Structure formats: structure tokens, C-alpha cells
């Protein structure tokens, strides 16, 4: 098994800042926009993004929450393992809001499909967008694409993309395990 670094902390920092600027371009003052980090790994990413908002754009008030989509997954009872849920925390109405889903890696697209179904239980959003740090293109099983993408990579079947979040922005790293 070998590990190849895809992005080091400096590149991740540049990408995250760029993603934040793209969000600001489209959502201006975020008056009607909410960011939702997808459990489990999207929560780390949304926290990093919120850190950058706070550090570089402190005047913007960003509403954010955490969404768990376990009960909407399409692989229930398809393996020996029980699908273990995590907590959701959305303290505001989604009705008529622009929702940006935040996840670290876009792979088959099935998680995003489940997350989009799950959002409906909180109300009918005005729009849904997707932000991902890594897009493993050519691996999609359903037609889902990201609106905001940190980096696109090509991988072999069996490869694993690992996103490691450190305590500080400089400790972050993304590598591919093959």
C-alpha cells in the first residue's frame, strides 16, 4: 500500500480561500443562504470554511448546520453492517432557503442523493448547491455534479482518497492510498 500526497496544507488553504470567494460571488451577503456540512467528513470541511469566513470576511453572518443522511441511504440491509447514524443539527428553517451542501469527497454521488432527499424533511429549499473539496471524476454512479469544486482527480478502482484535518489550517493534507 502506498500513499501519494495530492494536496499539501498550503494548496488546501489556497483552494479553501478560493471556494469561499466563489460562494461570496454567488450568495453576496448570505441573507437567504445556509451551509450544511454532511456527516461525518463534511463537518470538518465546513468548520474549516467557517474559520476562513470568520478570519477573512468577518462581516458576513453565515448560517450553518450539520446534516446526517443515514436514514435516507439506498444501501440499508445491503451489508452485514448496521448503518450507524450521526447527529443532525439544523436550528433554522430550510423552507425557501438557498442550501449549499458541503462534503469533502464526491465519489459515487449516492451520499449526495441521500442528503438531498434528507433535506426535504426540514422544508422545501429554494435551491440546492454542492461544494466539495475533491471530485473523483469518472467514478459517478448517478448524475450528480458539484457547483463548487476544490480539485478534480482521476483515481483507479480501489484507491482511497484520505483528507486529514489538523488542528490548524497548516496541518491539513490530502493523499491518495493505493
Amino acid at each position, binding site marked *: 500500500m502506498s500513499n501519494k500526497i495530492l494536496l499539501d496544507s498550503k494548496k488546501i488553504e489556497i483552494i479553501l480561500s478560493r471556494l469561499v470567494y466563489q460562494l461570496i460571488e454567488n450568495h453576496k451577503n448570505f441573507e437567504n443562504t445556509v451551509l450544511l456540512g454532511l456527516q461525518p467528513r463534511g463537518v470538518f470541511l465546513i468548520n474549516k470554511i467557517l474559520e476562513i469566513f470568520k478570519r477573512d470576511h468577518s462581516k458576513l453572518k453565515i448560517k450553518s448546520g450539520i446534516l*446526517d443522511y*443515514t*436514514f*435516507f441511504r439506498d444501501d*440499508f*440491509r*445491503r451489508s*452485514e*453492517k*448496521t*448503518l*450507524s*447514524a*450521526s*447527529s*443532525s443539527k439544523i436550528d433554522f*428553517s430550510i*423552507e425557501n432557503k438557498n442550501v449549499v451542501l458541503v462534503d469533502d469527497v464526491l465519489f459515487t454521488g449516492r451520499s449526495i442523493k441521500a442528503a438531498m*432527499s434528507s433535506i*426535504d*424533511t*426540514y*422544508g422545501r429549499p429554494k435551491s440546492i448547491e454542492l461544494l466539495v473539496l475533491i471530485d473523483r471524476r469518472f467514478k459517478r454512479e448517478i448524475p450528480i455534479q458539484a457547483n463548487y469544486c476544490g480539485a478534480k482527480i482521476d483515481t483507479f478502482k480501489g484507491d482511497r482518497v484520505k483528507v486529514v484535518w489538523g488542528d490548524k489550517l497548516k496541518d491539513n493534507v490530502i493523499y491518495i492510498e493505493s
Partner: protein
Amino acid sequence: MDKLSVNHLLGIKSLSKSDINLIFKTASHFKEVINRPIKKVPTLRDITIANLFFENSTRTKISFELAEKRLGADIINFTSSSSSVKKGESLIDTVNNILAMKVDMIVLRHPNPGSSFLLSQHTDSCIVNAGDGSHEHPTQALLDSFSLYENLEDLKGKNILIVGDILHSRVALSNIYVLNLLGANVKLSCPLSLLPKDIEKLNLSVETDIVKALKWCDAVNVLRVQRERMIKSYFPNDREYSMLFGLDINKLNKIKKDILILHPGPINRGVEITSDIVDSNNSIILDQVENGVAIRMAIIYLLASKMNFSINQ
């Protein structure tokens, strides 16, 4: 541990501590789900559940039904009073006929102790015990202890008092098993005529002075006097029972501290507990009802997870 150690929920006695922790963790997620604007998930859309109630029930039946509907399952309801049981059909025959219609899970309420176990031995279906005679009522005990857990956090070392008709109560026995597993100290308070033989062997103590017992406890679970199961008289009358063992403001004033009040329902106001206590701030009786749906969703979800999906290809 990410899955239950059992394939049926027959009683608390067959569960481990990690099973209970998994059920609590899953229930807390379902509690969030049932507080969303749209309270339904599609997880069990390919599962059919039969609720077989051979005994009267209001809240358990509604709670199970709601839990199943919230999980997206198809359900059929059966009550023995309007069925072929009246024509002499046996429990196993009735259930096997229902299972032949491709039912995946059975929720059973039956007056005979051990009926759920019997069914699990003679059918291929997953069985959930919704109360079997005076034996066990595992989902009630789990929702009681989950309600305690929400308020007291870790139950280890906490003092829990159970007051009432212990002899005829399946809730009492299941509660004792759960509380023992979670490390709580359990005390019973009731007329000695309503105390089952050898109950002290279950790692608990008995106190007939209810005020003394209330002073000791962090929470009290008040049980109903089950007249329908009594074949003889166990105490002179309701008034005397109420004076000695009924929870009222006079007794609570004497203990000079706040304790949590639980009651599994149905409540006989004025007998085992007075109205002002039922509706007081320390009462978590309605939390128990809400938690009942979440706990039952968790149990059904976790048991269904163990039934592997198969498609005839």
C-alpha cells in the same frame, strides 16, 4: 459495537449493556428526526410489520404504529377480538398465516408470559415483544431508562425507586433488568402483598416506608395497580393504598428535594399518583411518551438492519 447482539427483542434479559447504549444512541437520532417539520424517513420502505395485539393497549399500540410509519414501513394491525382467534385458531397458526403474506416483523402483545419467545422458536420472522403477560415489557423499560438517561446522563450510581404493583407489572421486571445493566441502584416500594417472591435476588432493596424511599431516590417510577390481573384482593381498598403508597404533594414536601417523576401509563389519578404531581415540573411522563416513539423506531431500525435484503434474480 455497531449492531445488536440479538435478532429479536424478547426481553431486556437477552440484551447486553452495549445493545442498550446502541439503542439509546440510535433513539436520540430518531428523536431529532421526529422533531423535524416532516417526521418521516424512507428507511424501512421495503419492510412489512404486523402488530399483533392479543391484549388491550392504547399508547404502546399507537407508539409502535407511529414508529413504524415514521420509518416508512408498511403495517398491518391485528386485534384478537375481531379475528379467527375467537374461532379457536392457535397463536402459532395465526402468525404463520400472517407471515405467509410476506410479513417481515411481528410486534406481539399477549397475555401469556413467554409468548414472544414461543413465537420466535416457531416462526422465521423477527419478533418484538410489546408486553407478554406479567413477564417483560422491554420497549417500555428502554423508553423509561432513556428518559432517565436524558435527564440524569449516566445512570451508574443513580438511585431509582419503583413504586406500585410490582407483582403484576411486566414494566417493573424489565425496568429492573435495564437499571441493573446500566449500574443504577434500584429500590422497590409497595405493599408486601404486591412484591414477587425472591425479587430481592435481582440486586435491589425493598422499603415499605415510601417517604424514606423517596428521600433516597433521584427518580421515581410510579406503576399502576393492575386490577385486571388480580385474582384476589391484595390490599383493603384504593383509599388505603393511596394513603400509604400513592404519590402526593404531602409526601414530596417531606423529602425537601427535587426528584424526577415517571409513570408508564395509563394513570389512575388519585390512586397511585395525584393530578398535581402528574402535571408538575418534575414530571417527565409526557417525555416518556415522546421517547417511546424514538426508542421503538431505534429498535425496529436496528432489528431490520439485521435482516439482509434479498432479491430473487
